[in-house]
């Protein structure tokens, strides 16, 4: 069967024609065309509709409204959401937003008609004098509490709400100025403030340049070696499905990307003085090249040279427990590192943040080396002394496989397999080591309950010391009607917006995981083996996830763990 590689459609569908006149012409032999085209009513007509509806001289109605035969209405008439049935006489213009206008037999309308987001159904015997415009495509409008219409904007992520952003166009260059928080709060920087311009040049339909310049103001940086300012600059050229980029940076980098997301770490630090991540200072430059092999499949090669340095925790303010001491930030193996990485991303999720279906597979391999590493002391069981007289070099692999499945309209099953750690070469430096335990990967256990620290090694920083970790997570979700909250009433005393949580996912979850040191020593696992399953730690739990907030009760069942209560500000995975 010959595959239809490309079709060009010529949409010969003036929206104001009747359905029987609408013909879409498809030419299968036309040149390929790509992309998503969103079709809607012309913006200027939507603006006209809103102005008409909001005019104080307009009589506004909502829902199903009828003007019976013999009735007479004079003036401007507008309807939002519903059916406007006219069998009488209307002297004046009519506008309908996301509704249907029925001109019944005997109707006599003397004025212009504008319908957006619905149809005009005209019976035989209906009379209309005036201009008539009908757009079937939905009007992107919403009715405010004041009873007026306004453009419905796409919802902004919460993180974007704490940002000031403006864009303007100069010739082909689009400039965006940004002033925002760094989206987190931590014990090294406090609240980072990010600012700077982004320049986008769309050279052609397939090629684009982008230059992103960001300054980072660290509000709690005075007591550390970290300067009060950091920066990130990135230049990118994209041509079709391939691209190259270069960047220079001076930034604070987390050692592990779990157990919480950056924003959750920020809230935890700000409210409870609990910073669940560790950090180091990274300054350097690098380049990358990528190819988008297909829409969901991306391959990337990177090479960078970093100066990596330890940083100390400071004492930023927190709302509760402010008098407590912050957990120390661990020392790292300072030095200059050259890293070459290969990364493969396969992403078929239907949504990025709240996916219900699809795959997400991320695989990253990194080879790093250093000629001037200054190692911190670690017990020999954790790591032999780094080599002298040759470069210190190691390989690391990260694998994250997630599957989101909706198996019935109301039942979803999600699974995740994650592996991270050393694969070859010298043993990992501190800043590449891994651990388990905490709200994300193994929430039934305490933060870093499994950090591979040998008996007798007590470091208040509680550093991650494992060579490798593997976790598997499964959760089953079903939607529940909660109706926890109240419903407002609008001016007509009809039921209005619901404030609270109407629905939430009931989540049943289980996680298993293991972190270990690789080697032939006591308590270590041979480098070519994965620990036997009976050594893995397991937890089970239940929770309610309302999308932007979720609460869970989880218990580790492999050891005598207390029940943990967690609040998450996003999906678990």
């Amino acid at each position, binding site marked *: *069967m010959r*595959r*239809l*590689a*490309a*079709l*060009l*459609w010529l*949409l010969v*569908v003036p929206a104001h024609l*009747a*359905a029987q006149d*609408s*013909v*879409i*012409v*498809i*030419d*299968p*032999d036309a040149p*390929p*065309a*790509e*992309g*998503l*085209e*969103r*079709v809607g009513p012309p913006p200027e007509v939507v603006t006209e509709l809103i102005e008409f509806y909001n005019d104080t001289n307009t009589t506004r109605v909502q829902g199903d409204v009828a003007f019976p035969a013999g009735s007479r209405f004079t003036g401007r008439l507008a309807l939002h959401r519903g059916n406007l049935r006219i069998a009488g006489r209307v002297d004046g213009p009519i506008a309908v937003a*996301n*509704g*249907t206008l029925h001109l019944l037999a005997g109707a006599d309308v003397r004025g212009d008609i504008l319908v957006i*987001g*619905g*149809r005009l*159904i005209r019976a035989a015997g209906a009379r209309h004098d005036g201009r008539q415009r009908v757009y*079937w*495509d*939905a*009007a992107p409008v919403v009715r405010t509490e004041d009873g007026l219409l306004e453009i*419905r904007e796409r919802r902004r992520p919460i993180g974007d709400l704490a940002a000031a952003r403006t864009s303007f166009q100069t010739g082909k260059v689009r400039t965006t100025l940004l002033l925002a928080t760094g989206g987190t709060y931590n014990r090294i920087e406090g609240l980072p403030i990010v600012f700077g311009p982004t320049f986008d040049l769309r050279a052609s339909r397939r090629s684009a340049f982008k230059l992103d310049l960001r300054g980072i103001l660290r509000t709690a940086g005075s007591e550390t070696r970290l300067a009060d300012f950091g920066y990130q600059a990135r230049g990118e050229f994209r041509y079709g499905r391939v691209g190259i980029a270069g960047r220079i940076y001076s930034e604070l980098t987390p050692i592990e990307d779990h157990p919480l997301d950056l924003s959750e770490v920020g809230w935890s630090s700000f409210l409870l003085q609990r910073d669940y991540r560790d950090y180091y200072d990274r300054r350097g430059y690098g380049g990358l090249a990528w190819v988008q*092999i*297909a*829409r*969901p*499949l991306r391959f990337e090669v990177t090479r960078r040279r970093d100066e990596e340095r330890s940083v100390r925790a400071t004492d930023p303010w927190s709302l509760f427990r402010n008098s407590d001491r912050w957990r120390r930030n661990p020392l790292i193996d300072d030095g200059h590192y050259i890293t070459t990485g290969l990364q493969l991303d*396969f992403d*078929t*999720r*239907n949504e990025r943040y709240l996916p*219900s*279906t*699809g*795959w997400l597979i991320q695989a990253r391999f990194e080879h790093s080396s250093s000629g001037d590493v200054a190692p911190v002391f670690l017990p020999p069981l954790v790591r032999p002394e780094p080599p002298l007289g040759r470069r210190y070099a190691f390989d690391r692999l990260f694998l994250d496989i997630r*599957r*989101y*499945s*909706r*198996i*019935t*309209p109301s039942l979803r099953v999600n699974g995740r397999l994650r592996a991270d750690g050393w694969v070859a070469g010298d043993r990992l430096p501190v800043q590449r080591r891994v651990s388990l335990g905490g709200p994300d990967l193994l929430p039934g256990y305490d933060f870093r309950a499994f950090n591979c620290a040998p008996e007798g090694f007590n470091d208040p920083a509680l550093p991650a010391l494992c060579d490798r970790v593997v976790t598997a997570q499964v959760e089953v979700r079903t939607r529940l009607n909660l109706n926890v909250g109240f419903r407002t009433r609008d001016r007509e005393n009809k039921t209005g917006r619901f404030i609270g949580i109407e629905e939430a996912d009931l989540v049943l979850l289980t996680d298993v995981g293991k972190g270990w040191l690789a080697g032939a020593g006591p308590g270590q696992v041979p480098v070519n083996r994965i620990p036997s399953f009976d050594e893995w730690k397991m937890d089970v739990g239940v929770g309610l996830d309302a999308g932007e907030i979720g609460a869970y009760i989880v218990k580790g069942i492999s050891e005598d763990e207390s029940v943990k209560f967690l609040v998450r500000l996003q999906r678990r995975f």
Partner: protein
Amino acid sequence: MILVLLVALLAFAAPAASHAQAGNSVRLEVRLTPDSATRGQRAPVIRSDNLLGDGRWLSTLRSGLPVRLHYRIEVWRSRNGWLDQLTRQVYWDVVVRHEPLLDQYTMLTIFGSRVQERRYATLDALTAALAFAYQINVSPNVTGNYYYTATLEISTLSDSDLDELERFLEGDLEAARGQEGLGDALGRGATRFLLRLAGLPSLRLEVRTQRFTVR
């Protein structure tokens, strides 16, 4: 004996197919464009009607499941005394889903690598949009007698099916096939099994045009 059985099967199968078209409220029509080309070439115009008049599909949409309309046009060359020859086929998809938060219906029309999205706020508008006719410019050039068959398959999709469908039709067919080894085939199979268990509908309609001659 086998031949007799086959003939009997065909004899019963043909009326059953006709019955399917007549008995379901969804209708599929295909006609030829007017005979105005100098060589007699005519294109097919295909149109489905009354999809939402069949309450099952509306109920499916309102249950949150997308509905997929898979159209296929086949160009057949009629050969007297010999089996007809399939010379070409073209297909495209229309996927409809209800967005309860906006109380709107999104209609994706997927032609090869291009996807068009339209939104409708009322059932009337959606119904009218679903009744669009499609003229497919696949008229044959070689001399001969031809006819077109038009097929419409309507099915319920899970979200994962929808996602895969979009990727398939946006040019990711080979890549997506290659990924079946990752376990997706089992996942989709189980999903479809559960959908069928849930009693969700599917429908297949097929019609054909009269013959025409290209000179």
